[in-house]
């Protein structure tokens, strides 16, 4: 599913080069739930941004579903985000002027699937427990509900991988548990491949495997 070998990313900040990734090797199988843990500045977010096609890598090899991300143009990476990768962010990142349902629909529209019927998705909405909250705007939803809407939005186009960047970072422990259980259920029931960044080792225990990062490398 994901094959990464000697992946490097160098940022230029002013006149200084910052080595965000110094040679990452990682392999993720289809249907796996992998948690990436590590301190701030260890390169977790950079790895996710590259996997999600938000920023290009500097060197190395990175393949998602057989597609080589290193050779992708900007337009190809935009297409990757449409269907192959789904994001869940720490700050939810819902569009404030749209209802929960419209937030999910706009992701389908961007992927060009607005007209396609997807009866199975109603089951996912029920699994996430947001069927009664779909007509509310984000400001009328709790943090936990907003994050569940964000999860629904991230998987509405059936992406190959779901990338979750600190999805419980803004939630209390009760809502964190709900969201983490939902991610695990989603992984178990639908076989959704998930990569999750977290600081919290308890949260990481919900995954099948824990990967530790430090100073731009995977240490175990």
């Amino acid at each position, binding site marked *: 599913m994901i094959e990464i070998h000697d992946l490097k990313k160098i940022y230029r900040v002013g006149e200084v080069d910052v080595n965000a990734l110094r040679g990452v090797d990682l392999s993720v199988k289809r249907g796996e739930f992998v948690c990436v843990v590590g301190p701030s500045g260890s390169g977790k977010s950079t790895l996710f941004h590259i996997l999600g096609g938000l920023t290009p890598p500097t060197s190395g090899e990175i393949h998602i579903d057989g597609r080589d991300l290193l050779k992708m143009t900007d337009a190809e990476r935009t297409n990757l*985000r449409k269907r192959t990768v789904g994001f869940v962010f720490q700050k939810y990142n819902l569009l404030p002027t749209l209802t929960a349902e419209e937030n999910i629909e706009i992701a389908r529209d*961007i992927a060009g699937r607005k007209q396609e019927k997807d009866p199975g998705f109603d089951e996912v909405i029920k699994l996430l427990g947001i069927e009664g909250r779909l007509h509310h705007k984000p400001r009328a939803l709790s943090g936990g509900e907003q994050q569940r809407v964000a999860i629904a939005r991230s998987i509405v186009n059936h992406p190959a991988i779901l990338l979750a960047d600190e999805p419980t970072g803004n939630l209390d422990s009760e809502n964190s548990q709900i969201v983490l259980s939902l991610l695990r259920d989603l992984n178990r029931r639908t076989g959704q491949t998930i990569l999750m960044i977290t600081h919290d080792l308890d949260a990481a225990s919900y995954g099948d495997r824990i990967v530790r990062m430090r100073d731009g490398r995977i240490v175990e």
Partner: protein
Amino acid sequence: MPEGIVGLVRRTPYVTMATGSLVQPTSRVLTSIAGIHLAEFDAMSGGFKYLEGGPFMGPDDLIVDDVEARSSHLHAGSIVDFGIKWRVTGVVESGKFSRMFADLKPLQEKYSSTGKVSVIWVKVDHQATVQSVIEALKQELPEYQIWSVEQYTSLISANNIPLLKNFTAVVIGIGVVIGFLVVFLSMYTAVLERTREIGILKALGASPGYVLGILLRETVLLAVVGILSGILMTYGSRALLNALYPTFVTEIAYDWWPIAAVIALIAALIGAIYPGLKAARQDAIEALSYD
């Protein structure tokens, strides 16, 4: 001018009627009373149409037109004080070259203008003889200005006030520039504030074209709503002005509607496209971290 000239004018060939009128400024700014010989004035102008009361009978009587009556809350029987007190005997329809009328003789006496008139109104037997009468009067009375009614009305139009046209053009120009800048900057700020939302759309896989498409549709919709609101507000402003200042003449410049609409639309589009394009091309990670 001496009132005696009226007799001389009357004797000019083709002249069928002539009447003198004294335009007497009052103590109130931009207000004057026209002193008239009522019977002659009626014969020449077709007569007053009384909406209230009737013609003046005594030396202190005054006739006002409906616009003046509305703006100064006057009715038949009201007393008007311009330093000299007048009693309103009638309210007439407007359109007779003055807002207030009094009998010529008492007005001359009250303002120490006995035997003087400001204007002599002349009626000739036929339209075709107007020019020859003007020529004849110019020869007879070389020291006075003589105009046809068409020339006279054109003299008091706004276009004849020195520099007013230039002043109006400058005011319109400033209005256009400020209007453009306000719309441009409003849209610019509105789109700039949505950089983060644009970042979210990009993270979901939206192309720059998709983002710009959304922005353009929203901008055009906002501009159209703004244009329609502006037109409605024009009517609101006119109603307000008419209510506050009934003597103030307002005119809606319909030919400015399409010009204003195009200015608003172009300003809104430029104001939205520039930051929109910048945000759509911006790195999604940077756009997402915009607060």
